[in-house]
């Protein structure tokens, strides 16, 4: 018998008797014989838990990780410290093993934190309403685009070329699927959106998609953008940690704010599971994708929470739904909720400041090095692009040998000429690590 399956042969015998069958094979009589006869197994033998653990440990050891390496990798996924309380709390079976809160009375825990999460995301982004998660930053941006298309009934989108190219790739896929037109907006020498370009393309525009801090770490100037594009949607993808010090997109008139929520207490997980953030104006709430919790009362008038505005969703609205999303990234949203609760307003601000200060410390030490220059002049948050004389691959190799994950070689993305390295600095990086990092750069 298998540890995960309680039925014993005796149990099976009793159950078959109740059903009125002789053999479990009969349960599958509806499956055509041709199909059953073609079946081929995988040839995998069962493993004990111990053997499986050994196998998986071996695989895991075959990957670098940011416990063993000192990481300056960012590009959307950051090596922030995950407080111990978080994995402990989210591992509680009642959080981990429940599903979508279909039965509200048995799901007040989930519904309550969803409500908390929505509130926090509104606070961070300066928006009026947030959903309880999307798949990731990339698909959240794509969903924003689809929502803008649905509301504006237009198909033309401007996309800042300075957004994360991984998101840009996702946008392209979704846009092709939905028959939308994407126009790249170039960036200027300071690493920011070319506003003049935007001005020229406002006609019949569905929306403008911009990211701040952008892929290069540069903080975009969002002032006046909404005015410039008028009724077209201003969609901003933001790093939630940066919102500890940066003015929220909401104050610049953004219509939709999205972002990647991984930095909010989630592990890097080799890029998934992640957490798509999504917030908008209350006036668009019924056109918004994703699940939401809403506050209500029970039969005794006591406060409680339910899933709200489900009539937007696919299980009711089907092909007319605001989105096809069903299973989302709930557990990661719970992580973010606990993380933000732990930090509080002052903690989040200070965390953002520490990231900012440390990134500038490193940038200032790299920029005077011969063979290295800062690529952009615009203000940046916790990430910046360094242009190098030598090939990034060579530099990264040298760094790796000294125990550093040194940054991201931007060559494969084709957005920048020459040799460029994207370097991120979080609160985990110490001065000593940065000084050693600079020493290695000097040597190469």
């Amino acid at each position: 018998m298998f540890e995960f399956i309680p039925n014993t042969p005796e149990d099976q015998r009793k159950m078959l008797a109740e059903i009125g069958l002789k053999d479990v094979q009969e349960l599958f009589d509806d499956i055509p014989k041709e199909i059953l006869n073609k079946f081929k197994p995988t040839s995998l033998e069962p493993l004990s838990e111990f053997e499986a653990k050994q196998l998986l440990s071996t695989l895991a050891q075959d990957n670098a990780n940011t416990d063993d390496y000192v990481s300056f990798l960012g590009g959307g996924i950051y090596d922030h410290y995950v407080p111990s309380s978080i994995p402990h709390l989210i591992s509680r079976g009642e959080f981990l093993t429940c599903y979508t809160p279909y039965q509200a009375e048995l799901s007040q825990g989930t519904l309550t934190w969803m409500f908390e999460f929505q509130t926090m995301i509104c606070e961070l982004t300066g928006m009026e309403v947030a959903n309880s998660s999307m798949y990731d930053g990339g698909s959240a941006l794509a969903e924003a685009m689809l929502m803008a298309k649905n509301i504006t009934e237009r198909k033309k989108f401007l996309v800042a070329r300075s957004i994360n190219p991984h998101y840009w790739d996702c946008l392209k896929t979704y846009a092709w699927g939905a028959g939308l037109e994407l126009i790249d907006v170039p960036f200027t020498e300071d690493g920011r959106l070319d506003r003049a370009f935007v001005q020229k393309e406002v006609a019949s525009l569905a929306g403008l998609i911009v990211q701040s801090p952008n892929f290069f770490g540069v903080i975009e100037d969002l002032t006046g953008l909404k005015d410039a594009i008028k009724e077209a949607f201003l969609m901003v993808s933001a790093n939630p940690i940066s919102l500890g010090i940066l003015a929220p997109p909401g104050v610049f008139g953004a219509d939709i704010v999205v972002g990647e929520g991984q930095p909010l207490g989630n592990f890097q997980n080799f890029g998934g599971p992640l957490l798509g953030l999504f917030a908008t104006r209350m006036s668009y709430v019924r056109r918004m994708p994703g699940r939401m919790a809403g506050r209500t009362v029970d039969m005794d008038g006591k406060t409680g929470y339910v899933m709200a505005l489900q009539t937007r969703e696919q299980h009711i609205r089907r092909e007319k739904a605001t989105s096809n999303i069903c299973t989302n990234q709930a557990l990661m949203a719970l992580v973010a909720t606990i993380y933000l609760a732990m930090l509080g307003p002052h903690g989040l601000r200070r965390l953002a400041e520490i990231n900012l200060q440390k990134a500038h410390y490193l940038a200032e030490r790299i920029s005077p090095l011969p063979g290295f220059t800062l690529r952009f002049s615009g203000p940046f948050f916790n990430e910046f692009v360094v242009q190098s004389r030598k090939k990034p691959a060579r530099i990264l190799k040298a760094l790796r040998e000294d125990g550093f994950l040194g940054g991201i070689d931007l060559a494969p993305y084709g957005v920048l000429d020459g040799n460029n390295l994207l370097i991120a600095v979080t609160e985990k990086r110490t001065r000593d690590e940065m000084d050693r990092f600079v020493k290695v750069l000097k040597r190469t």
Partner: protein
Amino acid sequence: MGTTIFDIGEEGRSALRLPALDVPEKNLTELIPAEFIRKEDAKLPQVSQIEVVRHYTKLSRMNYGVDNGIYPLGSCTMKYNPRINEDTARLPGFASAHPLQGEELSQGALRLMYELGEYLCAIGGMDAITLQPAAGAHGELTGMLLIKKHFERTKGLHKRTKILLPDSAHGTNPASAAICGFEVVHIPSDSRGLVDLEALQAHLDDSVTGIMLTNPNTLGLFETDILEITRLVHDVGGLVYYDGANLNAIVGRARPGDMGVDIVHYNLHKTFSTPHGGGGPGAGPVAVVKKLEPYLPVPRIVKDGKKYSFDYERPHSIGKIHSFYGNFGVLVRAYTYIRMLGDAGLKAVSTNAVLNANYLRARLSKVYKAPYDRICMHEFVLTTKGMSEELRTLDVAKRLIDYGVHPSSIYFPLIVPEVMMIEPTETVSKEELDQFADALIKVAQEMKENPQILKEAPHVVPVYGASVRRLDDVRAAKEPILRG
């Protein structure tokens, strides 16, 4: 109840000390233009660590999960989530790996993904796979994009605009198809609860891109005509998309690939035991037949000798549908599970999932009406229609809560009125099945003898059970309060 973290704490408290700033601190406005700086802090909670731990511990106790008892949501496969999965997924080499650290430093992760892909292909009888989709619906969308790409490449897109969908389909199916601009055509079910072959044929022509088929379908019935269906669709040049949400019914003994399907998505959070996390994350890998392989999302994971790498050079790919490679942590869990089960275990899964469902069906169809009263697969539907003038299935579900068990799915599929859709999974014991059946039978009796108690259900009960009384959904819709 009703207390949020915002109702707790005091100005000035915090639950986490940050590492000291060990570099000289500059004036903020030296680094960022003043107009970009936030004027007012986000109004976040201000709580100490013990308050955080107590609050979320308490919230957790207002939930009911698989760990708390039977959770027979039809179409959701709420099976046991082995704890070993959590531990393997949290190994630092997986949880603290960065997606852009390079192939050379990611051989373990790449190998895991490559091998998981192979296993899933073998399990499904398919040729090639992408692990990128983050959930079933995401997989469906990927599938629709693949179909679109196929017809774009084969120059059929101008006339092919429709997608066929049985009326018992899950809501994500039409919603996913709609994103790609396909026109959804609903195919009715016949008296057997299966795709009405005649109706299908009536819609089959060269305007059709294909069909999205859930099998076993959401009534828990195997589409016995599936070979005929796939043949018919192929005959008009269409493709067959197989929604594998219900793979638990056949895993280890039958393969979609042997049914003539072209595309199939798997729900790793259903069939392959990864936890549902209160709504996610899941993973919805999509496997295809050989001819569709060129269209799969980039990057693909390829193996050359002993070395694994990402392949981005796929000119006909639909592109990326996830920021990185999908829900990798979920993939680790599914890999662990598949390796532990092996072939014998996978077969035991479907055997016992189907056995358990039929046992419950046999017991419950004596009391409730089973619209399709025959051997079912991993799940089955019942209805309360006609059992009471004043009571609805909703009342039955809420009353079940008072007995310490989680209700089944209700009001889905849409084609059965007042439906309960019951999927026990293979991981519940006979005793738990009996406990659930006994409760449901008791409630049927109460429907006659004490309808009021159902209307007022759930009642607040200790240890397990509801933490509030029945909640007002209407009010939440009319005057939505969506943030604190």
